């Protein structure tokens, strides 16, 4: 995510790159953009896993069902608010207050609220719900609406389609959040050993990849854009905004594979995970602050805005890690000590 965002601010390709219809002048630029595609599915699946795990723990510790759910409904609403009052404006370095559109953080928030409604159900019920959402979504994309009619745009783009109002409609991303909660059921409860977790996860990821490949190769339902050869740019990038069924299955597999890699790294060299765990403890803080820093920096120094190349994005990444890791560590300490409601919610 951070690499994707340093690319967004420092890489000159963004002068011409249309995120809805991306084109690539080189392999490096393709990989840089493609790497960022993992973030949103990762966010949603981890949010779903967190909701399920945290709900289970709260109930186990004696919280009532409603109290446990209410906590996540509040968190979801706060995420929507953070999107509107902070994240939207931070993209432009707070040049203008732009509350009236949604984005990934709002989508996570709304997905958390919906997931909370079914969090108590068994894993296979949630799995069926997620599959149903993924299968129905391509049909709903055919609903016609006008961008000029505010309520139609807001309704469709909050839930189904992507556009200026919201690039992350809830429906496909909620499906991934639900799938995250299902996977958490396996990772944290059903599968008792790391060997089992790794084996089952790889099997599930492989199944998802095979399904995705089948859907992409047959070229009909579940696809949005045409594809050239297997594993070509156009094969891998069908459509992100909103994601096609192929993209959702593919990145579900990628996220599960990524989590499996973390489990393996945790077994081989647990110290390596410490670097990732720092921002992982305060993800919302990391997201909100790094965007604000990048937005404000490029506003103050416009000569750096979209003037570099692939290497500049990596230099930006290194710089931001130097800034953000100590900041995250500090805020985590603040969060542990603080009893403030809002700090606890971030």
């Amino acid at each position, binding site marked *: 995510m951070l690499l994707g965002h340093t690319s967004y601010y420092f890489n*000159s390709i963004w*002068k*011409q790159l*249309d995120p809805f*219809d*991306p*084109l*690539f*002048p*080189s*392999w490096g630029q*393709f*990989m840089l953009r*493609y790497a960022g595609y993992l973030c949103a599915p990762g966010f949603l699946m981890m949010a779903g896993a967190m909701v399920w795990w945290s709900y289970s723990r709260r109930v186990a510790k004696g919280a009532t069902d409603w109290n446990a759910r209410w906590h996540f409904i509040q968190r979801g609403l706060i995420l929507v608010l953070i999107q509107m009052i902070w994240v939207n404006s931070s993209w432009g370095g707070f040049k203008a207050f732009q509350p009236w559109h949604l984005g990934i953080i709002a989508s996570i928030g709304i997905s958390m609220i919906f997931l909370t409604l079914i969090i108590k159900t068994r894993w296979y019920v949630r799995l069926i719900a997620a599959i149903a959402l993924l299968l129905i979504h391509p049909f709903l994309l055919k609903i016609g609406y006008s961008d000029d009619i505010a309520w139609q745009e807001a309704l469709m783009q909050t839930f189904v389609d992507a556009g200026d109002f919201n690039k992350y409609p809830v429906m496909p991303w909620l499906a991934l959040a639900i799938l995250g909660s299902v996977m958490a059921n396996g990772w944290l409860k059903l599968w008792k050993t790391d060997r*089992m977790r*790794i*084996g*089952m*996860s*790889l*099997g*599930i*990821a*492989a199944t998802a*990849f*095979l399904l995705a490949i089948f859907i992409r190769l047959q070229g009909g339902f579940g696809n949005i*854009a*045409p*594809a*050239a*050869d*297997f*594993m*070509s*740019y*156009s094969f*891998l*990038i069908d459509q992100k905004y909103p994601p096609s069924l192929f993209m959702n299955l593919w990145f579900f597999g990628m996220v599960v*594979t990524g989590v499996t890699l973390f489990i393996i790294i945790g077994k081989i060299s647990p110290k390596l995970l410490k670097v990732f765990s720092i921002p992982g403890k305060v993800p919302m803080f990391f997201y909100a602050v790094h965007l604000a820093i990048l937005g404000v920096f490029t506003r103050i120094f416009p000569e750096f805005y*979209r003037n570099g190349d692939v290497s500049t994005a990596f230099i930006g990444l290194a710089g931001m890690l130097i800034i953000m890791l100590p900041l995250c560590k500090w805020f985590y300490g603040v969060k542990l000590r603080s009893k403030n409601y809002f700090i606890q919610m971030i």
Partner: protein
Amino acid sequence: MKFFRIIGMFLLAAHMMASISGCSSRTGQPLENADNTIIYPPKNADDISANIILCRKISKTSGKPIGAGTTFEIRDKENLRALIQLQNREKQTKDLWFHVDWIGPNGKSFFLKSTILHAADSASDLNSSVSISPELRQPGEYRIKLYLFRELIAEKIFTLIPDNGIDENEVKASIILCRKIDKETGLPVEIDSSFRIRKKGKMNAIIDLTNLNPDEDDRELKFRLEWSDDEGNAFFKKKVDFIPTDTIAQLTSSISITPEKREAGVYWFRIYQSNKVLAERRFELYH
């Protein structure tokens, strides 16, 4: 579970390898052809390659570009056209998805066109055009980029410069006034700018047209030849329409200059194209 794990490991490894190495269908080294198109050659020699020609017009009959180049003047209500010639089109068996992206001097895309060439379609050319009117374009260095299945396969740099007011494609005309035209040679006889009014008197105008463009869409050229007095009152008009077959052509027009029809004084002969005076010549009649 062991089966799942083995399959999973295999797929994961294959996926990582393919993601890292196999995505691009083009070689890393671009080439510039004689036509100044920067080409990203395909790894497979049978894959699509493309040449980009930029021009002001494309002949509807021959399909040939007219006014091709890499430097163009910004002109009111004019377009710049890209004729994209695809190589190895006949070797392709599936639909091809192209994007043509026009990039301004600021590096931003100002027009993106997506086209699917269906396998059944035998067309081996793509067209795209953009306005180069002064209200839309600034002088500077521009680019046109061609993508196949989201991958850059060719690009061309071109320059837009301010309008110098000279239209290189404009038809040019020159007028000769004479007493008569030799029937055998077709040459003017008694070239002058003043002519005597007399019985059975006649005078002629010979108009030499140059810079005609016979390739230009079989376009019919329309001219108006006009004889008028010094106050602009036309007493004889003649319309001439023709399709040029060469870059030059000659028109003629004659009037009677008898005492019954003309008075002594100053007169004008003008040739118009689309109400624009291409050329004019002043002459006098006397008794």
